[in-house]
């Protein structure tokens, strides 16, 4: 371990913090400089040495000015709120120039992926005046859900003459959690006879049915349902819950005992899309995906919880004995009157959605 650490340190010592690479014009420039130097030495023409010196010094000036341009820059990433696989998102980049007097010209900023290679998009800043900040963004699409690691940012410039590209890698690790792709759900829902879930939606929760119980106030609840006495006693607002509403609790169950592949990914996408659709329609939605459980809620942050869970869900893994650990079964929990929608990977484009109502009495465990 000690040897590895020392080797790493030595390697870091010799690896320069700045990288530079000659551009095509830079290569021609160097060739021209060498030819001119050769001609000056062998032609015995002193004035050509002046011109040769000019070319050499321009090359040096290129290096010095590009270094000055890259100094004292603060760069930050502004991650988008949500990223879905297959959908473009805008990654914000902001750069602050901390130099007192010197602006930075012609700066390119690229994200570095996990393998320290730049992604295929970059941001360009023509000029960042001294002591100023500028922001821009690039559009990118990630095809796979899950965790994508960014290790840093690469700042590079070809300023001032475009003879060489100087770059510096800044450590800025970030993990992009890419949610599953969203797909249209309505037709499938209809096909599987779940239309009643959609048709009975209304903007305001229905107050029909028997009194079911009390619960905390959620967004969209009718203020007339507030149970003031309980609210006063508890110090929080509680509303009456009616039986009709309890039918609006849905648990989306994703079957993870499957093979990894397009079918599973499609099932994940459908589970996500279904959950979001139901949330938008006012349902209380929860999720069961393998060992992960997201209790049902009806607020919009619930979407984030469900999507995060689905972003990271993997197929069920076999243990050392070859047994696949069973998922948390929807049947082992009591979701009060929740409808179970099980999404099973089938054909890649059409996972199977099965509805199973699970009604229980209020006092069941």
């Amino acid at each position: 371990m000690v040897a590895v650490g020392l080797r790493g340190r030595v390697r870091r010592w010799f690896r320069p913090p700045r990288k530079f690479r000659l551009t095509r014009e830079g290569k021609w420039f160097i060739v021209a400089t060498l030819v001119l130097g050769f001609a000056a030495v062998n032609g015995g023409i002193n004035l050509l040495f002046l011109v040769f010196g000019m070319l050499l010094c321009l090359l040096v000036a290129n290096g010095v000015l590009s270094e000055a341009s890259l100094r004292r820059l603060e760069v930050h990433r502004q991650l988008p709120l949500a990223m879905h696989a297959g959908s473009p998102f805008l990654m914000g980049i902001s750069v602050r120039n901390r130099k007192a007097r010197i602006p930075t010209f012609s700066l390119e900023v690229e994200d570095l992926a996990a393998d320290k290679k730049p992604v295929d998009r970059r941001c360009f800043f023509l000029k960042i005046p001294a002591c100023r900040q500028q922001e821009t963004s690039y559009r990118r699409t990630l095809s796979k859900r899950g965790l994508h690691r960014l290790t840093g940012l690469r700042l590079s410039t070809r300023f001032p003459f475009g003879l060489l590209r100087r770059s510096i890698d800044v450590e800025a690790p970030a993990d992009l959690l890419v949610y599953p792709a969203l797909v249209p759900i309505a037709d499938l829902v209809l096909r599987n006879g779940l239309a009643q879930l959609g048709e009975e939606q209304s903007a305001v929760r229905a107050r029909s049915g028997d009194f079911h119980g009390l619960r905390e106030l959620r967004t969209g609840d009718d203020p007339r349902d507030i149970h003031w006495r309980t609210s006063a006693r508890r110090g929080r607002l509680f509303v009456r819950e009616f039986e009709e509403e309890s039918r609006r609790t849905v648990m989306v169950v994703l079957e993870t005992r499957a093979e990894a592949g397009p079918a599973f990914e499609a099932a994940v996408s459908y589970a996500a899309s279904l959950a979001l659709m139901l949330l938008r329609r006012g349902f209380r939605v929860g999720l069961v995906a393998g060992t992960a459980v997201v209790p049902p809620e009806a607020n919009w942050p619930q979407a984030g919880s469900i999507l995060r869970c689905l972003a990271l869900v993997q197929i069920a893994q076999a243990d050392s004995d070859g047994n696949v650990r069973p998922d948390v079964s929807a049947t082992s929990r009591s979701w009060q009157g929740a409808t179970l929608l099980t999404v099973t990977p089938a054909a890649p484009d059409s996972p199977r959605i099965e509805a199973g109502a699970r009604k229980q009495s209020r006092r069941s465990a």
Partner: protein
Amino acid sequence: MRFRLVHKLASFVLAATAFLTLATSGVLSTVVLVLVVLGGALAWLADPETRVGLLLDRCAGWLTVVTLLFLAAAVFQVARSFPEVDLSPFLDFVLFLLIYKLCQRRGNRDYLQIYILSFLIMLAAAWTAISVIFVVGFSIYVVLATWTLILFHLRREIEENYIVRHASESQAEQVTATRVLNSRRVVGLSFFLTTGGVALLVLVGSSLVFAMVPRVGIGFILGGVRRQVGIAGFSDEVKLGMHGLISTDNQTVVLRAQIPHIAAMANDDERDRAIASLYWRGTAYDTYDKGQWLRSRDDKARTQYTVTQSPRDFSRIYLVTDALDPRSSEGRKAALQGTLEQDVEIVALSHPVAFAIDRPVAFEMPPPPMGSFTAVDLEPRWSGEASLRMFRVNPANPYDRRQAMTEFQGASYKVYSRDGKRGKGAGFAVEQLAPDAVDNYLRVPDSTAERMRTLAQTITAGKKSPVAKVLAVVTWLKQTHGYTTDLKRNERVADPLEDFLFEEKAGHCEYFASAAAVLLRLSGVPTRYINGFLGGEWNDLRKAVTVRENRAHSWIEAYLGGEGWVRVDATPALARSSRMGALRQLIDSAELFWGRWVVEYSASQQLLLAQRLGRKFGISSRVYSPGRGPTPLTRKQVLLITGLVMLVIAVLSQRKRLRRRHSRHKQESSLQREQPIVRLYQSTLKRLAAAGTARLPSESPHAYLLRMKNQELDGTAELERLTDCYASARYGDIAIPPETVAQLRRQASQIGRPA
């Protein structure tokens, strides 16, 4: 100013600077100059959307044909000039191409080609430059090139990033690039000041490279193909009437001389008078025939030397003797006493004559400079005249001067002269000399008109001594003839001298000198005709006398028996100022510096410069001296230098370590701000990494967990719980209760432990 306009202006000025720098070298004809200027003016108006631009676009095909024809013509002319290759047609083609591209600039590639062409023109200027003005042009070019290249780079970045990156179908994106190009905020005064400062540093760097790159190439070894600074035309024969045509207005510098005796004069008027009476003796002629002065090339008239060579530094001293001067060697050595010492630098001459103040007694030729591959030596000619000759140095034998070269590129030497007007020579009386010794100096053409013989007798009637005859002739000429350079010639008179004496009665120094020489010969006084320069201009900055071509003058030397050869100037005196204005002094000094330290810069000057710098910084007072090797550094100096180097290395290494510590501290601070579960996870990873099971940068936490399970790491269940909690906290914004964290912390110690 708008960015687009600034870029255009900088590009045009850059091209103009290169062109004007080339124009100062004198290689371009007036027609080419005018055409290029007109073409440049047209190109300025030929922007893409203007009427002129559109017209040129329509004619693009024809212009291409014209370009190809021009190229073909240039190739043909160059080929025709073989074997003496003349590349000026190519130069004209490059200028044409530059104007063409300036008119047809539509995109970045056109601008790049314009810059390349302007650079080629600057190269041509470097090749052909003859004066210090090149440095001015070059300096401006460096500054402009820095600005222009930066602006070009920015323009290219704007067009690449604001057009290409976005979909071309969007007009809005192209408008963005246009808007940026028309912006006034991209570059401003501070930009130009800062980059101008960088450009000046580039200029200084160029000078350092120029000074330090060793001059050891083939070109220097072979004597180089260096362009001469400016050749003063000095003819090897004299035809009456040519002097006025050639050199009256010519300001070309012929030589510069430092004369300690004159530099020591405090009084300006006294110095002016002294300079005005300096006769720079050059060529001597002994035969006159039909308006021409020639040399008989008689061995008896050949200049003779006694050569002394210094074994220490291989310098040579040539003691000049004369066939008619019978002094002993002791007498000749004694002649050096009381002479006027001059340090002469011949700039460049078409005929390399060793000029010296009349009458040179000895020439001291310096040794070949260390590191130089060529040197100059003296070669005797006739009638006391000497010429200069370049030869290639033989490193094995410094005394070997046989490898003569045809080129002559100036020379520096010392001369010791005595006053040529006062003989002080122990000459013989004419009657005592053998006839064949003086024949050349008494001979007149048989075709000399009878009236000239009569005139000579009339003028010198009753005069017995040669001195009296000389005075009579000179007085008569000055009284009866006037000075003019506006010569009129009666073609009916065959001999121009006869025309001068009897018809026109006005002329310049050649006529007066020729008339005096011939009349004195007809009176029995041996004479010879001398060409040289009279006077000069004092440069107070360099404490030297500068002699230009317009100071050319002719006089004669008359043999006065016991006095020997004495200078006689029959031309009426002309008042000419010996003073140089301040600006002219500055330019003259700059030209001298230019010639010595730039155009003729060689390995010897590099060594000399190193020696001076070493002396200045006290490294050693004798790093180099002729005949000795370099002196090694003292122990103290070695220790000092070593200590300095080690200190620099130590400071640099500490700087790196401090920077690393600071970045680590920053990383740790940001970690501490994160949740405890995150810290616990990170520390567990560190521990596992130390054990050789590090998480790869490309692995997500769950992928890493899976890999650990596959590797049957102990404590994977604990690791799984830890990973789940970490992922929930990090990505799910779920707060993990402290008791859970504590429990996980306890369990984390089991992870990776052997069972």
